[in-house]
């Protein structure tokens, strides 16, 4: 009951935020017109006399950005939950297995070397070189962590945690070195990327990452039972009849894919993967059958809202979204933490 209500509230809030995000910005478009434009685009209304400029702003600029926010937010929420599940640790997040560090390293290298030999490739691929590099960087780091953590053909979660720390440190060192050698201008782009932004959203890159992000969001909830049993231990899961190796391999693979693709377009957006699953657990209990889809919805909501704030609060300047998620998330998180002290000390 409480869970159904949570879903309904999240969906209602999400729809409200989407419409608000499409209407607000440098050019204000009333809610009624937003709905008319969307409906006529969807073929539900005919011969409407909408403002072509407003329609252009919504369909070409704001809609892809909102969709990117929804996808990235849902991906961060879902993968955060899943990774916390297999690590049996509510403080884990996808960054732990090197995904973000690998992506940052590649991005920083590409930004810093752009003036040199990357310029050729850059010109033919354009903006997407950064995305492709980040995606491969995250995949490579996660693969390395995964390979290092294998013992008797099985990934071991304790080893994976340690390997993750090592690879994070290594990637961090390279990132630091390249950053140190960068020019002023490059530093600005690096910082902006590191704090995350949905500003790069176009229909092109949104459609490009959509399968990589949406598939994990849909598939990960099918591992709910497995993630639940991980809470009482891997060997118990085997005795109960679940294949723990396949659970670990798929969760790591799908999380890497979703976060790698997200990071490649939006940069590193912290806090959502950690805050959202926690909040959902405090609201509706720890069963992954609830937490995974609820975190997807709540992640999408938080990120869309954060993006709306980041681009409207000090118009026309755009703040990095990572700043907003932390500023917005921390007070809510502390509020819930204080309210549920008792529950959390038992987490």
């Amino acid at each position, binding site marked *: 009951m409480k869970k159904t209500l949570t879903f309904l509230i999240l969906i209602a809030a999400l729809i409200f935020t989407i419409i608000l995000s499409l209407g607000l910005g440098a050019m204000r478009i009333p809610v009624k017109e937003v709905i008319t434009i969307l409906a006529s685009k969807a073929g539900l209304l005919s011969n409407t006399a909408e403002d072509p400029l407003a329609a252009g702003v919504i369909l070409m600029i704001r809609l892809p950005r909102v969709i990117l926010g929804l996808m990235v937010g849902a991906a961060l929420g879902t993968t955060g939950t899943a990774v916390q599940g297999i690590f049996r640790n509510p403080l884990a997040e996808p960054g732990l297995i090197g995904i973000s560090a690998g992506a940052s390293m590649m991005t920083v290298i590409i930004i810093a070397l752009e003036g040199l030999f990357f310029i050729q490739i850059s010109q033919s691929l354009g903006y997407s070189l950064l995305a492709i590099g980040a995606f491969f960087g995250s995949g490579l780091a996660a693969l390395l962590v995964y390979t290092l953590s294998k013992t008797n053909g099985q990934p071991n979660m304790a080893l994976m945690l340690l390997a993750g720390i090592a690879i994070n440190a290594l990637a961090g060192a390279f990132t630091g070195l390249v950053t140190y050698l960068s020019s002023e201008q490059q530093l600005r782009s690096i910082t902006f990327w590191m704090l995350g932004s949905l500003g790069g959203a176009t229909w092109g890159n949104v459609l490009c990452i959509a399968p990589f992000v949406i598939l994990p969001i849909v598939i990960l909830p099918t591992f709910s039972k497995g993630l*639940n049993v991980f809470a*009482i231990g891997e060997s118990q899961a085997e005795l109960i009849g679940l294949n723990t190796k396949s659970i670990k391999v798929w969760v790591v693979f799908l999380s890497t894919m979703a976060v790698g693709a997200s990071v490649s377009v939006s940069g590193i957006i912290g806090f959502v993967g950690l805050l959202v699953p926690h909040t959902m657990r405090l609201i509706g209990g720890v069963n992954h059958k609830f937490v995974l889809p609820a975190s997807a919805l709540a992640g999408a909501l938080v990120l869309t809202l954060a993006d709306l704030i980041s681009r409207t609060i000090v118009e026309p300047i755009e703040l990095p979204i990572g700043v907003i998620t932390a500023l917005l998330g921390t007070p809510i998180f502390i509020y819930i933490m204080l309210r549920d002290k008792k529950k959390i000390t038992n987490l």
Partner: protein
Amino acid sequence: MLRVEAVGFKVNQRNLLNDVSFNIRSGEFIAIMGANGAGKSTLMKLLSAEQTPTSGTISLHGKDLFTYSRKELSTKRAMLQQQNAISMPFSVEEVVMMGRYGQYGHKPVHRDEVAVAEAMEVCGLTDMADRTLLTMSGGEQQRVHLARVLAQLWDQKEAVLLLDEPLNNMDLQFQHQTLGIASALAKKGFIVISVLHDINLAAQYVSRMILMKGGRKWWDGSPAEVLSPAHIYNTFSINARVYTDDHTLRTQIIPDEICLDAQTFNSNMNPEASVIIL
């Protein structure tokens, strides 16, 4: 029929189990006993197919235990492990339902719900169904895990129930309740094998005892056959008197107390300190 033939288990050149053989028929309730490090838990891990023996064979109902699929095994044997820590605050009912996870797809069906409800009932957990494990005492948590393991095999016949020190932290009532449940399942046709430390309690319930020593089977038989002062001294290095209880006609033991002089191990301490410690 569970058939264990010349089973050995070696880790890093160390023999944890050596040439262990026995047969167990359906309907038997067996206690595995022995000193710490005698190989009891290792044996249980092999019987549950969690580990593969380095030599010898184990077969269940005429088929090599290790050729059963993971899914088949989940309906043929369940095991309550010695360590049961939980990392997230799941409710009692959710944990007991985990026992059924290998047997249903996306959603539990009627028989899963019945199994969970009845397993909780028999373990005295019905009133605590919504409490989270992290707020419960050690003995209560142990009962939840017992209920989970029972739920796993609830609708099976001739399955194997393995209990590794099931009575850990349980109070007097539930120690007996647990062994009573185990004994009832054996009568129903299960093979029940339990590692137990309380010899007198075991002798009240089990039909057969396997005494382990140094990774080998030391003795195997009814409590009256196994519980002799000589066997007890050989496996536990403690003297005990053995008698038959007039009322229950069960074999029972009374170990001699061990008396130590604090001076023998407090030689480095000054006399005042050892008085305080004692």
